């Protein structure tokens, strides 16, 4: 190969990436593509509208903050034309105008202000009232707030039956609500995780039996036959208490147990276990109980023997800090660190020497060696 050929080759190699970049257009944002298709507009218009939606969210937050008592609703219409609709129980567009500065100014051409009778707060109060009546009378129906109609809607398979059942309980649907017929009620398809409220206690970690059945673990001193999750009965499967254990598990009809625990803000994936033998004094671990919520503390002991257990072994773990606390209903709460399960809350005491509450948990070992099931560490 001549010197000249080598030079041309090198120049060509150097130019290749440049040519490649200059010849390609950036990939389309799938969200823009989907929205453009949905509203029948160009991708350029769709991109602009999506940007306006984000700005609209800021406007809603501002109105909710400044005038919550008169905000009746807030929504976006996409077709036939893009509009941001603000519903007020009092006042008109003049109230909103002062907010349309800076970034929010871009919404001005798309803003429509409507008058409605009821505020969102009133609608929510009505919804809660109806929900408690339905609950008392054991009537199944789905409740929603229809912003456009400024009404609470009660979806029932047979509205006439609903009216009759309410009348039998001495009730009738209040002003600002209406019943409507639906073919079927919503079915719970959601997952269930640790750190959530069940009747007497808190759900611990999700578990799986060797035969594939899934469920949720909690403390065994929680009643076997009184545990419900969002109104759904959780049948008791097996439990063990005494010695090293205070744990039982329940099946979860209609809910799929997941390897998640709720920390009060979002869900945390549990992907591993830390057995008692690897837990050490001074480790900082956290829990989420249905009553006292999220809290963290230092492992103070891994050799505690709780008196509230029959023939207790000195295999329990205590956790303390200036902030961690527990109340009735927190039992069963998961303890974890990072993405690793540590244990299931059993009880509490107060340590006068440290001037702190101590939570007592059963190490995670007890789930497998006590129940014969395994903590879920993958979805």
């Amino acid at each position, binding site marked *: 190969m001549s010197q000249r050929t080598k030079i041309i080759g090198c120049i060509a190699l150097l130019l290749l990436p440049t040519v490649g970049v200059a010849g390609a257009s950036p990939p389309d944002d799938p969200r823009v593509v989907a929205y453009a298709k949905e509203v029948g507009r160009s991708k350029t218009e769709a991109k602009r509208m999506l940007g306006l939606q984000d700005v609209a969210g800021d406007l809603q937050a501002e109105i909710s903050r400044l005038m919550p008592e008169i905000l009746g609703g807030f929504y976006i219409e996409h077709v036939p034309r893009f509009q941001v609709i603000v519903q007020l129980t009092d006042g008109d567009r003049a109230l909103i105008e002062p907010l349309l500065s800076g970034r929010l100014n871009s919404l001005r051409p798309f803003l429509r202000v409507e008058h409605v009778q009821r505020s969102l707060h009133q609608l929510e109060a009505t919804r809660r009232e109806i929900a408690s009546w339905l609950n008392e009378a054991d009537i199944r129906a789905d409740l929603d707030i229809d912003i456009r109609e400024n009404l609470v809607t009660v979806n029932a398979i047979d509205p006439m039956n609903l009216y009759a059942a309410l009348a039998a309980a001495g009730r009738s649907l209040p002003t600002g609500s209406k019943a409507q017929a639906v073919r079927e009620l919503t079915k719970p398809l959601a997952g269930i995780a640790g750190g959530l409220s069940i009747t007497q*206690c808190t759900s611990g970690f999700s578990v799986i039996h060797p035969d594939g059945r899934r469920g949720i673990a909690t403390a065994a001193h929680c009643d076997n036959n*009184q545990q419900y999750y969002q109104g759904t009965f959780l049948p008791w499967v097996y439990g063990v208490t005494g010695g090293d254990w205070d744990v039982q598990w329940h099946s979860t009809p209609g809910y799929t147990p997941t390897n998640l625990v709720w920390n009060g803000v979002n869900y945390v994936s549990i992907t591993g276990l830390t057995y008692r033998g690897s837990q050490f004094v001074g480790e900082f671990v956290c829990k989420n*109980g249905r009553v006292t919520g999220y809290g963290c503390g230092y492992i103070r002991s891994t050799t*505690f023997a709780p008196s*509230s257990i029959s023939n207790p072994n000195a295999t329990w773990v205590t956790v303390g800090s200036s902030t961690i606390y527990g*109340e*009735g209903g927190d039992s069963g709460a998961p303890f974890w660190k990072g993405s690793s399960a540590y244990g299931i809350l059993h009880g509490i005491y107060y340590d006068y020497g440290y001037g702190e509450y101590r939570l007592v948990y059963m190490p995670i070992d007890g789930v497998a060696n006590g129940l014969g099931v395994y903590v879920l560490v993958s979805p």
Partner: protein
Amino acid sequence: MKRKLQLGTAVILGALAGCTPPPARDSITPHIVMLNPSAAINSWPLAVIEGEIVIEEGCIKVKPGGGGANAVLIFVPSFKLKDLESGWAIVNRHGETWGKIGETRRIGGAIIDSAEVISRYLTPTDRQICPGPYWLVTPDEPVDLLPRNQPSPPVPLP
């Protein structure tokens, strides 16, 4: 012995209830079950029950709102029974009302169904007067949550 006599009186009065006017509300002092003062206790369970506080067979119990058997309530020794004009009440160490008979409330603690734990936590007299099932009431105050009668308590009570 005095409690047995009270219980006997209650039984006789109960038998006569069909042919005599019902006794006044405070004619019989209900029995309040306390943790055995000598029991070693170092932890308190954290389940919760919601139910009505009732007197049944002379004992203070919780009638669970969700169904199930009524359970005898076990209190820490600092709690007391108090005869208010409006009825019996259970008061805490400060004399504040924890709950009244007929009142519905949420009660932290747990069902205690282990015979071994029951034998440690309750005196034979209490077990005889008020047979279970039992609900151990987990107290709210730090001083009531201190480990008690441990071999070597961390620091003596103030």
